[in-house]
């Protein structure tokens, strides 16, 4: 068993960061929430509705109301970046092709991709660009709720920082609620309102300040380790002495 009696509420408009050791089931939690995996017990409610009790049609409506960014983007490799972004729009809405193209270009521009990325295939894009194109696809239908699975993993610090800024800006302007699995301490500090820590099959949830005072050894090791101190700006060198 990976999770035991988890209890998690995501509030409207907040950015929640989920952290935990390797194999603690962060991604499994995300996949369960978006309905890719079935929980053995318990329920998942989204916008106040139990997703497992919903009919197909209502479920599809709900799915159109959220966006999911997988690790490394999960772009469809046989479609160009612009076609990837246009796909959910084309499936959900009846739009004329020229308008569809313009909206796809807008979405790519929103996530900071230059216009010449649009006709490129995922294999021709760098990791950071794929991630951004994946985000553009997740945002295609202007969802209110966004799930991100390790959005900054494997990006260089500049690209990761830019991604953080992007999420923060989009959240302000689009009023997004964000559920973000991440290991990036800088992201946690920069954009997360609350942090949920998966330890001992449970979730410990709190703001950064609350968690820093949590006595749990794993949490202390995570936030008070050399990298945590560096990210918190406590000056690694001094603390060692």
């Amino acid at each position, binding site marked *: 068993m990976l999770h035991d009696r988890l209890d998690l509420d995501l509030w409207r408009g907040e950015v929640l960061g989920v952290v935990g050791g390797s194999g603690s089931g962060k991604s499994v939690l995300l996949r369960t929430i978006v309905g890719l995996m079935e929980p053995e017990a318990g329920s998942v409610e989204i916008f106040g509705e139990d997703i497992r009790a919903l009919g197909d049609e209502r479920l599809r409506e709900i799915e159109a109301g959220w966006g999911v960014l997988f690790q490394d983007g999960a772009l469809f*490799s046989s479609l160009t970046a612009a076609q990837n972004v246009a796909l959910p729009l084309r499936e959900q*809405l009846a*739009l004329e092709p*020229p308008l569809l193209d313009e*909206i796809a270009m*807008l979405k790519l*521009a*929103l996530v900071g991709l230059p216009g010449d990325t649009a006709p490129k295939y995922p294999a021709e894009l760098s990791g950071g660009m794929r991630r951004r194109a994946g985000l553009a696809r997740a945002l295609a239908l202007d969802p209110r709720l966004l799930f991100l699975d390790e959005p900054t993993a494997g990006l260089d610090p500049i690209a990761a920082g830019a991604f953080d800024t992007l999420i923060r800006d989009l959240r*302000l302007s*689009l009023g997004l609620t964000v559920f973000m699995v991440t290991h990036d301490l800088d992201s946690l500090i920069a954009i997360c309102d609350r942090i949920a820590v998966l330890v001992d099959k449970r979730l410990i949830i709190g703001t950064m300040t609350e968690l820093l005072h949590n006595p749990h050894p794993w949490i202390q090791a995570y936030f008070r380790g050399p990298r945590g101190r560096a990210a918190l700006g406590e000056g690694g060198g001094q603390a060692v002495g």
Partner: protein
Amino acid sequence: MHADEAGFDLQAEGDALVLRAAGRWLVAAAEGLDRQLRQLDAVAAGTRLRIDLARVDRLDTVGAWLVLRTRRDLEARGVVAAIENVAADFAPLLEQVARSEPPAPEQREAGPFDAVLAALARLGENTVDAVLEARGLVGFFGIVVVTLSRTLRRPARLRTVSLVTQMERTGVSALPILGLLSFLIGVVLAYQGADQLRRFGAEIFTVNLLGVGILRELGVLLTAIIVAGRSGSAFTAEIGAMEVNEEVDAMRTLGLDPIEVLVLPRLFGLVLTLPLLAVYADFMALFGGMLMSWAVLGIAPPLFLRQLHTALGEWTFWVGILKAPFFAATIALVGCHAGLMVSRNAESVGRLTTLSVVRSIFLVIIIDAAFSILYAQLGI
């Protein structure tokens, strides 16, 4: 969604026009809004136009973009446009979209010969592709031969475990399907042959037809086609999936030669296995033919075997089996080459797998025809 709730009306107020947007300016309403907003093309240059957003209930990125695009298009035509009464909630969104507004798409009129030109361009592309691919295959054959000669000098480098695995997968597991199909082909051939030859009272020559037809051509050709479908496709898909996963690149960085590790065991495995499979197919087809001759023509097995013995020349069996290693090498090379050609997307695995099967069957039949000419020249 309430697509019909979004809209605007245009009124003259003093010397200016006022566009009052109302309702939910969301992506779901984009189609209708886009069409309506195109009517603004009629607004004359020099007019002052105010875009009033006071009555907009909801706005998303596409709605915001439509507002901004309208202003941009109007300004480009010399209309003095301004956006006003933006709700506090919408201000950051408009700002964000304005910052990243994509440039206006380039409009290009379709020329009258576009379709013809596109068809010609495609024809040219396909021709160049075909030539390049043929050259690639020949080049690949060369690389394999070079690697092969290097490996044969140090036979210890031959990967025996991999070789045996390949032989099992391409050979042993093909036995049931190949046996069944060959048996049925033998049955069908005997039945059809008997039907025709009976008219001349020459039923006994059904045995000659079976023996020569199966041993010289059908047995080995059938085997090659089934193996191309079963194993050639598997080679492409396996190596292609590794290529997608960057495993082949990883192999190169570890100092392993993909040709040696991936191609040679498959090539050797198939060259050793296919002749054996062909012998088995010959046997099963003759067995099917023998049973059918017994049932339809009353030619008992001892008589069948005696007639078969007189029907077959010294070379009949070898003429068929000699072709098997060539077919095997063709199938393995085409399959592995297609696998290594896979680019990093899922579609290319499927496309190249199909291509590999079609191409190897095509080449097998071409080679078979070449052998027929060769044998005719040699008089066997």
